[in-house]
């Protein structure tokens, strides 16, 4: 099977996806799209990755980003973490396989997984700052981003990063601007070993199946596809030689899902909270209507005067004198 990650630029580059293809839009609703785009996916074959970081460079170049010159702390990871400028990052892990006692150098290209059920989008309070297309791409629309960082809390993969420069959130776009004109993502285009391939999700699954079969024939009996069902599947998938323990790959979550804390915050708290505040206000109106205001009577005023008069040391009341306040 040939995966064409680098199709020729078509003479006609009309936009193949746009706002009409949104299936979700943060803090707002969208009409059901008239058409369903073919779901796409990026497949990252960890077993074929040589750690050259061409994907990182291509990502910076295509997205016109610059990363600060960093500091070497004795590991290959560079920069040390995802940043508002580094949408994708090679993470290197030295792992001793307890079965073979061999050192395995695990290299995982980290970045947005483009979840079918995106936690970032669920958490986002700004209408239209995060959108999901019917082909599966989850994209940030920076014009609408308010920089609150809720997406960071919503994401099960610790991906979004808030820029200290413009206070907006950034992550991999799956090169939505390239996909829209029929091209694959820049990282896939740059990968020299075709460890990163891009196509329809079905094609990618079929391709992964071949790769997994090959890995199994080479002794990786636990080789498998990482397409976690907890987030509805993802549109960035991994072929892992040790798919039974994803977390050895620099903390890839074993069973990612939107945190129950985020579900509670964006679910019951949001609706019950509004209802409770509305109820409190309504109860006030009803109480006022039923019982009327609690008024001070003339007798109360007289009692107060009598008390003031009787008090020890009080001067006799002068009924004609106005109080001084």
């Amino acid at each position, binding site marked *: 099977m040939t995966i064409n990650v680098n199709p020729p630029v078509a003479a006609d580059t009309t936009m193949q996806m746009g706002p009409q293809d949104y299936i979700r839009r943060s*803090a*707002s609703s969208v009409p059901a799209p008239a058409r369903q785009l073919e779901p796409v996916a990026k497949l990252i074959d960890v077993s074929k990755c040589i750690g050259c970081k061409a994907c990182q460079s291509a990502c910076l170049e295509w997205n016109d980003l610059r990363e600060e010159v960093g500091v070497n702390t004795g590991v290959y990871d560079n920069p040390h973490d995802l940043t508002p400028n580094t949408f994708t990052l090679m993470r290197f892990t030295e792992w001793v396989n307890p079965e073979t006692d061999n050192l395995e150098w695990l290299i995982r290209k980290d970045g947005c997984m483009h979840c079918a059920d995106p936690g970032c989008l669920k958490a986002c*309070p*700004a*209408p239209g700052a995060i959108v999901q297309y019917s082909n599966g791409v989850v994209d940030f629309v920076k014009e609408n981003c*308010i*920089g*609150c*960082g*809720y997406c*960071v*809390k919503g*994401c099960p993969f*610790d991906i979004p990063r*808030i820029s200290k420069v413009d*206070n907006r959130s950034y992550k991999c776009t799956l090169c939505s601007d390239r996909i829209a004109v029929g091209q694959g993502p820049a990282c896939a285009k740059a990968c020299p070993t075709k460890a990163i391939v891009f196509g329809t999700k079905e094609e990618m699954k079929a391709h992964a199946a071949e790769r997994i079969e090959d890995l199994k024939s080479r002794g990786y009996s636990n080789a498998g596809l990482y397409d976690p069902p907890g987030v509805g599947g993802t549109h960035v998938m991994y072929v892992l030689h040790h798919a039974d323990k994803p977390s050895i790959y620099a903390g890839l979550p074993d069973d990612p899902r939107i*945190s129950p*804390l*985020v579900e*509670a*915050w964006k679910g019951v*708290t*949001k609706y019950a*909270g*509004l209802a*409770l*505040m509305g109820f*409190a*206000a309504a109860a*006030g109106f009803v*109480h*006022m209507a039923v*019982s*009327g*205001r*609690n*008024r*001070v*009577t*003339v007798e*109360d*005023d007289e*009692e*107060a*005067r*009598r*008390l*003031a*008069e*009787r*008090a020890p040391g*009080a*001067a006799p*009341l002068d009924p*004609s*004198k*106005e*109080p*001084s*306040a």
Partner: protein
Amino acid sequence: MTDGTMHGHNRPAPHVTKADIDRGDRLHVGREVIVDRYTKWARLNHWVTAISLILLALSGLALFHPSLFWLTNLFGGGQMTRMLHPWFGVVLFFSFAGLFIRFFRLNLPAREDAQWAARIGDVLKGNEEKLPEVGKYNAGQKFVFWAMSVLIMILIASGLGIWEEYFTQYLTIEQLRIAVLVHSIAAVAIICVWIIHVYAAFWVQGTLSAMTRGTVSGGWAWRHHRKWLRALAAYGKRDDRPDEPKS
């Protein structure tokens, strides 16, 4: 009619002491009795707190539910709302700290609070004659005071944690999730307490002037805070009696 007889009920007047009144409380005696309840500094402190609480509620609600996102327009858009909200919180925290220092002593629990709270039905019906005599604050006001105090502590602590510009990097993502959930629940609670506070101030006629002009009528004090009025009559500063020299 004697001290112990009012509204047809016979009951002894409670024991009062000088500790039942605040320094700024004062009795003006004349054709009618007027009572100073809050000094101008206490009122200023209160309104700074009130305005920051309202701004916090509006800017917070804007980010709480999508149907309220339009409230960000009041603050100059989403980015501005996100930026301003924590600073309103800082103002509120310090302003409320001032109120706390001013008010906490007379908001400490008193013997009659349990009885007052147990008769909450009569409170809501306005059957004041069935309630015990209370000091400067009744159990409902004390509830508002302590609920505000505790909730503001929770809100400032969780709010600092999720302040994206300065502090989120010090917490793990799991801690941030807990903080944001706690923050939103505490915010709902404090808005409900605020609704109770504002409603009570409107419902009990004559209350608002305490925070606008600083004074209440003698009748209001007799009706709602009789123990306070008794203490004030016996030990408080009065127009018709020279102030005790400051010791």
